[in-house]
């Protein structure tokens, strides 16, 4: 890192942390190129890329035609040319248009070519509910991507992590899906180190924990960590000590942290925004079954979106898991047997 890195830290929104990190990473490595729909002159529809076009120019911050498959597909070629592509998919739901390039090409480029070409590609995409967006803007698709070998899946829940994980993602030689919770963009705010800050993949973060002993562990990722934190707060007032773990990255998965927490608590609630059937919570439960079955004192409880497509604005508050549902699930789990 250049010695001109600022010291100290600053409270920022997650959105500002992302923007700040993109500035720093583009500064650090001139191979980094940002592109996608409206990322340039407009600074992104959420302003995540604000100021980058002016700072780094239209060669490195590129407004592309409106075509997700080509956005993902050209990233493959850019990577082979020696660039470090950071494409944006404007909303994760439109990664469906690029699935064949993401799952079939980006995820396998290194494998297919035996490392002649790597894919140091970071695909940024916002997703998640609670902000009254039109269809396909809110869908949580991480479970679908998790079954695709070759991708890493990164889902920060704090501004500091958004910085540390995004910087790690951009420097990672493998393709990373970096998913940004829409609802957290401005609502999540915390202390972000201004200098070099890298958060390694595959290390879960303990968000809430009783120093003595927790009754139950809540496992979550992305914005559901915030919901779980609030639930834990409320539960504490009701005398239930809930540990909260933020997975941070789904692939690679920190199975050790999961195992330790299950061994400590014996009772688990997993929270996800995605539909229940085969969301990533299923994998968390299957993993617990594998590595900590004998520590379980009660069935693991899933709190999920329902098995319906993400609904329209009037209904989304009924659909997305909230504090009430998490609290109820925890109480049920703690009371089981």
């Amino acid at each position: 890192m250049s010695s001109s890195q600022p010291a100290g830290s600053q409270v920022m929104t997650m959105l500002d942390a992302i923007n700040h990190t993109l500035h720093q990473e583009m500064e650090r490595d001139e191979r980094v190129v940002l592109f996608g729909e409206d990322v340039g002159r407009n600074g992104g529809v959420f302003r995540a890329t604000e100021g980058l076009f002016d700072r780094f120019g239209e060669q490195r911050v590129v407004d592309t035609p409106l075509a997700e498959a080509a956005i993902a597909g050209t990233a493959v070629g850019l990577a082979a040319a020696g660039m470090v592509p950071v494409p944006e998919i404007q909303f994760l739901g439109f990664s469906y248009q690029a699935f064949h390039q993401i799952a079939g090409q980006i995820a396998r480029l290194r494998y297919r070519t035996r490392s002649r070409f790597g894919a140091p590609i970071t695909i940024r995409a916002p997703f998640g509910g609670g902000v009254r967006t039109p269809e396909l803007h809110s869908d949580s698709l991480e479970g679908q991507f998790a079954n695709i070998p070759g991708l890493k899946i990164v889902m920060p829940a704090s501004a500091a992590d958004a910085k540390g994980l995004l910087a790690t993602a951009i420097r990672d030689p493998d393709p990373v899906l970096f998913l940004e919770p829409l609802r957290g963009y401005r609502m999540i705010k915390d202390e972000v180190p201004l200098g070099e800050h890298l958060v390694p993949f595959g290390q879960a973060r303990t968000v809430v924990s009783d120093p003595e002993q927790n009754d139950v562990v809540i496992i979550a990722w992305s914005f559901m960590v915030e919901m779980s934190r609030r639930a834990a707060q409320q539960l504490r007032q009701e005398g239930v000590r809930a540990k909260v773990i933020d997975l941070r990255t789904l692939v690679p998965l920190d199975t050790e942290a999961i195992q330790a927490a299950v061994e400590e608590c014996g009772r688990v609630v997993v929270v996800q925004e995605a539909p229940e059937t085969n969301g990533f919570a299923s994998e968390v439960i299957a993993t617990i079954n594998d590595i900590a079955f004998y520590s379980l004192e009660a069935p693991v409880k899933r709190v999920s979106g329902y098995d319906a497509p993400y609904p329209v604005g009037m209904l989304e508050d009924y659909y997305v898991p909230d504090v009430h549902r998490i609290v109820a699930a925890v109480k049920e789990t703690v009371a089981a047997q």
Partner: protein
Amino acid sequence: MCAPWLKRLRAAPANKRNWIFPIASSKMSVELENAPPKELGDQHLRWMMQQMLSARVFSQRVFNLQRQGRAGTNAPVDGSEALLAGTSLALDPTTDWILPQYRELVGLERFGPDVLNRYVLYVLGHPDGGHIPEPTRVWPPQISLATQVPHAVGLAWGMKLQGQKGCVLVYLGDGSSSEGDFYEACNFAGVLDAPVIIVVVNNGWAISTPVSSQTRAKNFAEKSHAFGIPGVSVDGTDPVAVFEATAEARSRAVAGAGPTLIEAVTYRLGPHTTADDPTRYVPEAELAAASERDGISVFRNELIERGVWTDEDEAATLAEADARMEAAVQSGEAHPVAPDDFFNHVYVEPTPRMQRQRTEFWADREARS
């Protein structure tokens, strides 16, 4: 920038205007036939003027609903009203279908009052906003860009297979034309000789991306060469030019001669959506120039000059549109919704798992109260 094309195209259709007929009465609320007119009479010109004005009123009022916190994000149609009037007049609402993108639902009154009513529900965030009931042959808004183009082609193909008369018209934006779905579908349409009219609404912008960053094609009609189908570029702010191009395409479609690609050149006079700030990227001068060529004022002046439009017509239309909108909003806001409604219509019958979830849902609601 798209400004040069615009100029060229705006200039072109003028000499085509062999449609000025003797002035008839100027009373309002013209009843139109279902069959599209073979030639445009005064009543049609007046009807199109009405439509354009109403669409602007609807569009702006829906926009304001969002500003008042009563509706969600929405995309105003301002600048493309002529396109809606011209295309819909050239279609038969009893045999033809329209598949919109997301801006057009304010200007398709010819296909039935439910189009607007349901669109209002849609922007209110009501699930019934997606339900445009029979017999109205208009589809709800499409958010996943260009995916509606293969739908339209499939629908046209299905009509052809069953020997149904009529055709399908689908709108998509200049930006959306960069999506693979647009090309794949146009190519299918060509091979299948599908009775479909594919209308690229070139309003100059895809959010902040100008047409010059979208494609190097000379214009969007040129894209038709890739599919071996006819393509035509018209001034989309001129309802008559649009009507003529659509009528011709429709004749071909219903005669079994296959698809047509129409580019309609308009200009997006407002922001992309309620969530957008176009001052960040739209050149002021370009917008000013486009506003001067606003299809509504140009057409109004033409009609006034020909003596088929009066201030009273204007006032009556605006009042009628206002009332119409007011009613739609009122009934929309009163439209009930069940909290567990999202379990409906996923499948004909919810799966056992969904039934379990629904039970849990209600237990949870109960526990809150």
